[in-house]
Each structure stands twice: as structure tokens, then as C-alpha cells.
């Protein structure tokens, strides 16, 4: 898998396929990016589980925090990790130890660990790094276009009127896929420098 840029079909199949998402590093503080993403994905119908040992006893939008992946007590389709690049490997190791490992491990915007990704992929797990599922969902559904963002998709079909909690169609025609080539290049250069 080329982790510098992803084919839209890869991202689309993940977001269309997963139903439950455990978010490691979810924050109850409502200005943190993890809170934004958690809330958005819950509103789009995903079964969200907040994982953060610092907040056990509290809940996030009605979902109780659990301390670790093993304490979820059931299988999840995707693990979305809101941790810095240096804290990824232990989470991946823990995920691989689960009775039923996840189908997808997703590393948030800014996070990348190629060794951890290779380990997960060797176990048959799909990996996405340095992306935000909220942004990707918004982009592929074109909902993000409200913000003037280049969704890199086109459609000549009439979209349904969106209602609350509704899953949006992600099956628009992709143009080029993912981020722009200039921004991909900049991200790659940054990654090589660090």
C-alpha cells in the first residue's frame, strides 16, 4: 500500500464497510479534533466506542469510555488512533492481540508509523495513515464542499436531501483521488525530513 496517497476506492471501501469504530485517544473536551471526529462519525451512524484510560467513568456523547482495546469486550471493525506517531506501535500491538483483530487501523491526521503499518498489514489489516475519517467522509460525500474544500469528486446525479443521522452516499466519481498532488508532495517531503 502506498501510504503517501490513497486511491479513493480504498478509503471509500473502508468507510462504506465498517460499522463499529473504537477511537483511541478520544477526548471529552469539545474543542479537540478527536471530539469533532467522534461526534461527526456518530452522527453519520457509526457505532463509536471512546477509548481513553484517563477518562474511565465518564462518557462521550452517551458512550462510556473504556480504558483499553481489550476492555471493549466485543469485536470492532476499525480502530481510529488519535495519538502522536511515537505512540502508535503499542496500540497496534494491542490490537493484534485481540481475540478478533480489527479489519482496519486508521491513524489520524499528522500520525504516521511505517513499521507499525507494515506489522498490521502483515496480519491482513488495512491501514490508513495521516488522514481524518471525518474529512474523508465529508470529502467523498461532498458534504465538505460547504467549506469551499476541493472534494476531488464530481457528480451529475441529484443527491438525496440529507437528514440527521443519515449515512451519505460516498459513491461519487473521484477525480484524481485523495489530496491534491501538490499537497501530497509537500506531505511526503515533510515526512522524509522528520
Amino acid at each position: 500500500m502506498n501510504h503517501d496517497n490513497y486511491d479513493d476506492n480504498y478509503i471509500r471501501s473502508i468507510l462504506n464497510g465498517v460499522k463499529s469504530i473504537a477511537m483511541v485517544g478520544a477526548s471529552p473536551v469539545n474543542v479537540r479534533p478527536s471530539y469533532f471526529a467522534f461526534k461527526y462519525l456518530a452522527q453519520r451512524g457509526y457505532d463509536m466506542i471512546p477509548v481513553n484510560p484517563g477518562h474511565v467513568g465518564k462518557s462521550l456523547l452517551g458512550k462510556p469510555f473504556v480504558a483499553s482495546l481489550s476492555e471493549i469486550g466485543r469485536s470492532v471493525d476499525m480502530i481510529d488512533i488519535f495519538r502522536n506517531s511515537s505512540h502508535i506501535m503499542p496500540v497496534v500491538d494491542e490490537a493484534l492481540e485481540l481475540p478478533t483483530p480489527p479489519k482496519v487501523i486508521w491513524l489520524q491526521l499528522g500520525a504516521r508509523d511505517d513499521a507499525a503499518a507494515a506489522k498490521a498489514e502483515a496480519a491482513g489489516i488495512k491501514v490508513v495513515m495521516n488522514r481524518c475519517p471525518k474529512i474523508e467522509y465529508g470529502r467523498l460525500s461532498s458534504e465538505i464542499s460547504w467549506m469551499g474544500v476541493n472534494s476531488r469528486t464530481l457528480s451529475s446525479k441529484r443527491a438525496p436531501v440529507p437528514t440527521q443521522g443519515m449515512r451519505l452516499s460516498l459513491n461519487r466519481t473521484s477525480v484524481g483521488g485523495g489530496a491534491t498532488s501538490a499537497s501530497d508532495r509537500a506531505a511526503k517531503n515533510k515526512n522524509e525530513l522528520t
Partner: protein
Amino acid sequence: MTDRLPGFSTLAVHAGAQPDPTTGARVTPIYQTTSFVFNDADHAASLFGLQAFGNIYTRIGNPTTAVLEERVAALEGGTAALAVASGHAAQVVVLQQLMMPGDEFIAARKLYGGSINQFTHAFKSFGWNVAWADPDDIASFERAVTPRTKAIFIESIANPAGSITDIEAIAEVARKAGVPLIVDNTLATPYLIRPIDHGADIVVHSLTKFLGGHGNSLGGIIVDGGTFDWSKGNKYPMLTEPRPEYHGIKIQETFGNFAFAIACRVLGLRDLGPAISPFNAFMILTGIETLPLRMQKHCENAKAVAEFLAGHSAVAAVNYAGLASDKYNKLARKYAPKGAGAVFTFSLRGGYDAGVNLVSNLKLFSHLANVGDTRSLVIHPASTTHSQLDDAAKVKSGAAPDVVRLSIGIEDKDDLIADLEQALSA
């Protein structure tokens, strides 16, 4: 479903637009409304807190304007865009995200006269200091860099003489200085030059010119290249520090490679207020659909008119980068192989008086202070757009007293040449 990148003309017609979900209207409707109802209190709070995508108030965003923004972002190869009331507003909003009082930016000396004024005088009261550099001397940009430098600003095809700027060389200076390169791409449009492909980080436009193209609506736009790492060196607190007006959100951390466009929207446009009218956004959007066709015709006509003038005995010199003999022809062939644009200058052997005579004798060309219209336009920069500059600055910026500027329209070129011919011999 394939990841096939459509061509420029397809994007010019389709990017950002889709049939209206409610009515099925195929053309983007004009959402001429100030405000948008919320689903409930939580939805309202989510929108105000930047947690959800959606519409609040037309000063911050509007569905018609959003189509325009996505379309220009797609045409420029940027990650996002923000439309504002004018090209001048775009420049204020961009620099407000980058500059604190006492900071500096470097600007090419060859710019639209209005920008020279804005940078020199209006920005001075904000404590933003401009350092001028010569786009024909790359080392002059390097020499102008100081620890307070926050950005470099150039025009791709520069006013008034249509000279071509070496974007890649100046992008390299910006990269070394650790500051973003801002390119005003108004005279080129993305059809002729895409500055982000050449290393620019931010593109601004006056949409009023070729993009809208019909001289009927003002507008400006900011395109985020998604290429600049704002976190490096802690130079850009608007992007990286917690924002008190949003309860401590950090814009870059939250919005990644389109953070700059979001900062311009939620910190710049929201608080400074220069919103574009949805009606103007609609007019400009309609104009953009024919941008490739118009630019081809503009460039073809401009070249024919420039060639005619170059061979006329009353003309002392023609500055058009599309002419093989022009000093900027090599750069034009590199950066703008499809055409060198349609704005250029020439000087008359008869000097200032001959220029004034020519302008008053033309019958098809309109004498006015705009460029990039379907109609051919003429102006005498020294007495109008560049009149606030002193004589030395006029010469340096390419607006010497004997210079006449043309913006060539999409009429039949033979008619344009005939009009110039009669006016030159009158």
C-alpha cells in the same frame, strides 16, 4: 468511480456543482439569503464550534459561493478556496492570517497599481511593512528577507506590461526563508498558469477579471495550496495557537492541509466581513464555465494585435511576452505555453500626448479601469491606475508616461486591428 483526473474544461464546467438536492435544478441556484435555519440547538452549536460542515450566515459561507470556491480550488490544483468581495479583500484576508504588527512581507515591484497602494499606504496603518523586490532580479528577493519576513507576494503575469514572473525561482527563495509564496494569478488564470504546480503556497485572484470574464461582477478568491507547513518555527500563531474566539481550537491541527483556507474563512472573513454577494458568485461561476474558450480567444487576439502594433510606424515598443522578440518570451514559453495572456502595454513615438490622442480616437476599445473583459479595453496607466506613484516608481512598475495598456477582448481580431489602425492615423 475511477481515479481519473478530468481535463481542465470538464472541471471548469462541473467542479463543485451538482443538481440541487431539493429541486433538481441543474444550474447552481442563487441562494440569495442571509441566513440558514439550524436543525436544532445542538446542530447550531456544532456549526458555530466548527464541528460540523454546514451553513450559518452568508458572511461566513453560502451554498452558491461554495460551488465557486470548490471550482476555483479544483482549477488551481489547491485543497480549498475562499471567495470574498474583491481581489483587494482577498489580499487583506490572506495577510491578516500571516502578519502581526511590525512584521514584513516582500512584494514584487511589478504589480497592479492598486496593490502597490494597498501595500504601501493602507497596510502601513496595520503595522504591516512591505519590502519591494524586482521580479527580474531574483537576488533582490533574497536580499529583502529578514527575521520578520512572513510572506512573499508576486503576480504570475504582472500588471501592467504582461511580464512573466519566474515563479519557481522565487518559490525557492520563499522555501529557503521558510515563508509562503503568494501568487496573484489574476491575469493568467489557471487556464494559462497554475502557480501551485510551480511552488506557490497560496493563490489569490481578482475574480472580476478573466475568471468572471464579462465585466459584470466584483469578486476575489484565496486558494490554499495545502503545501505549507504552518507549524514550522511557530511563525504563524493564527494557524497554530489556540484560538480564543473558538474556545481554544488550533486551526492547523484540526483542518490539516486546508487549514489556511479555513483560517481565512473563520478568522478573516468572519471578523473583517468582506463577503461576496451570492449573485456575484453565480455570475462569476457562469463565466468560469467558458474560461478555456475565452482564454484561447483572448490570447489569439492579443498576439495578433501585438504583432500588428509591433509593425506599426507610430509605435515605439510593444511589451507582450507572446512575441518571440520579447524579453519575457522565454519565461512565457515555460510558464504559459498556451498563451501569454491578453493584457499588455505599448509605447508611442509621440509620447504622452500621442497616448492620450489614441485613447480618445478609439471607437471599439473602451477607455476604463478594468481588464479581463469580453470587450477590448484601453487605459493610460500613468494618469489612472498608477497615477498615485511618483515618476520613478511609475517607470519601475512598467507604467511610464508614454505607455498605453490594452486588455484584448474576444471580438473579431480584424475589427480590433482596424480600430487601432484608424486611431493611430487619426
